[in-house]
C-alpha cells in the first residue's frame, strides 16, 4: 500500500505546487525572478521513485504545467495568415522536457538511497535552471531572435538558488512522510556496507 500512497502524495503535491505558483509573486527587485516550488518536488520524485513512477510524475506534471501556462498567439504573421490561433509551446514539449530531466536525475538515485541529501539540493537547482533556460530557448526559437540580457540570467539563476534553499525542507518533509507510511527512501545500511565491501556482488 505504501508503494502507492507515497508516489500518489508526491505527484499530487507537485500538481498543487504548480497550481499555487501564481500565488507566489515575482520579485521586482531581482529583475522579475520568481521562486518556483515544483522543480524541487520533481527532483525529489526523480530520486525517490522507481523509473515507472518517475515517468508518470514527469508526464502528469509536464502536461499540467503546459496547460496552466499555455500561450495562445493570434497576432503572429503565421496565425493571421492561417486565420487560426497558434500555441507558443506545444503541450507535449514540457512532458518531453520533464521526462528527460527526471530520467537524468533518476541516475543519481543510488547516492540518494545512501542518505546523501545534498544530491537533492544540487538537482533541485539543476532542474530549475535547466527548465527555465529550455523554456526561454523554445520561446526565442518561436518568436525569432535571441535576447540574453541580464534580466534573463537573473530569472534563471535566482529561482535555481531559491530551489536549492527550499530543497532541504522538501527533503525533510517527504523523507519523514516516507518513513511514516513505510515507503523505502533509504537503502538498508547493512546492504550498502555489503555492496561497498564486495562491489562486484553489489552490481
Amino acid at each position: 500500500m505504501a508503494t502507492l500512497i507515497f508516489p500518489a502524495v508526491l505527484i499530487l503535491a507537485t500538481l498543487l505546487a504548480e497550481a499555487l505558483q501564481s500565488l507566489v509573486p515575482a520579485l521586482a527587485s531581482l529583475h522579475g525572478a520568481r521562486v518556483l516550488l515544483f522543480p524541487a518536488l520533481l527532483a525529489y520524485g526523480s530520486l525517490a521513485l522507481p523509473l515507472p513512477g518517475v515517468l508518470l510524475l514527469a508526464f502528469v506534471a509536464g502536461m499540467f504545467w503546459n496547460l496552466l501556462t499555455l500561450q495562445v498567439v493570434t497576432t503572429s504573421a503565421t496565425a493571421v495568415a492561417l486565420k487560426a490561433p497558434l500555441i507558443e509551446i506545444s503541450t507535449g514539449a514540457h512532458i518531453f522536457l520533464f521526462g528527460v530531466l527526471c530520467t537524468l536525475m533518476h541516475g543519481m538515485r543510488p547516492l540518494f538511497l545512501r542518505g546523501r541529501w545534498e544530491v537533492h539540493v544540487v538537482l533541485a537547482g539543476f532542474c530549475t535552471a535547466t527548465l527555465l533556460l529550455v523554456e526561454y530557448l523554445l520561446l526565442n526559437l518561436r518568436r525569432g531572435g535571441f535576447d540574453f540580457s541580464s534580466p534573463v540570467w537573473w530569472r534563471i539563476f535566482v529561482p535555481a538558488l531559491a530551489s536549492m534553499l527550499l530543497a532541504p525542507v522538501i527533503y525533510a518533509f517527504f523523507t519523514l512522510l516516507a518513513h511514516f507510511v513505510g515507503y523505502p527512501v533509504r537503502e538498508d545500511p547493512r546492504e550498502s556496507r555489503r555492496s561497498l565491501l564486495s562491489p562486484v556482488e553489489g552490481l
Partner: protein
Amino acid sequence: MNRLGVIALAIFLIGTGIVLSLPPATQKRLAAAVQNVVAPLFKAGSDAKNRVEAYATGVKTLAELEKENALLKGENQRLSESAQLLRGLEEENAKLRAALDFKQRSKFRLVPARVIARESATWWTQILIDRGEQDGIEPDMPVLTEAGVVGKTTTVAKRSAAVLLIADENCKVAVSIEGAKEQGILSGARTSTSQSPELTIRFLPKTVEMKPGNKVYSSGVSGGVFPSGLLIGTVLESPKARELDAQVRVAPAVDLARLDNVFVIRTESAPVRPE
C-alpha cells in the same frame, strides 16, 4: 533498466507523441478544462487575501482618517467640476450627432471582473479573471480599467478567462500618438513583466515627431481587438531612429502590478450563456 522500466519508457514516449500531435483547438479546450478546475482554488485564495488586506487597511488612526477625509473632499470637488464639464460636453455631442445624423457603428458593454490569479510562469505575462463563457466573454476581447488598457482575453473557460497583458511581447496593439498623425504597433519586450513593463512602439516613420508625455491611444484598425481611442500610456522619450523605422518607449497608463478589478469590453452580439 529492467523490463518494467522499458515498458514504462515506451508508454511515456507514445503518450508524449500523442499529446504533441494534438491540434491547437484541442490544446485550448484542455487548457480551459484545467482553468475550470483551478479557478475556484484561485478565487478562494484571492478572497482570503482580500479579507486580510481589508482588515489590515481598515485599522487606521484618527490622524490618518482625517488626512484621508481631506483628500476625499478635494477629490469630490474635482470630480463634481469634471462631471459638470462632461455634462455640457455630452449635450453638445448629442446635438452635433443629431445634426450629422450619426449612427453608432457598434454597441459595447463593460463586464466587470476580478483578478483571481497572477502569472505563474517566468516568461509570460498574463492574469486570470473570474468571468468566462457564462458571462459572454470570448477570446480576443479587450480588457481595461478606468486608467487605460490592460490586455486582451486568450483562453476562456466557463467561469474564468486568461488575460494576456499589454506588457507581453505577444500582445500587439495598433496605436496612434497624441499630436502625431503617424501610427505604430505597440508591444512589450521579451523580458517585460507586469512589475517592470517595457512597452515600445515600433514601425513608426523616421520623421515622426512627438514629445515625452504625449498620450498613446489604440487606433482601432479594422478586424483588430481594441476599439479606437482607448488610453494605453504616455510617451517616455523622444523617438529613436533605426535603419528602417523609429521606435519609442511608452509607460503604461495602468499599474499592471496592482490589478484587482478590471472590465472586459463585450460587443452586444456576444451571447451570454444561461447559468
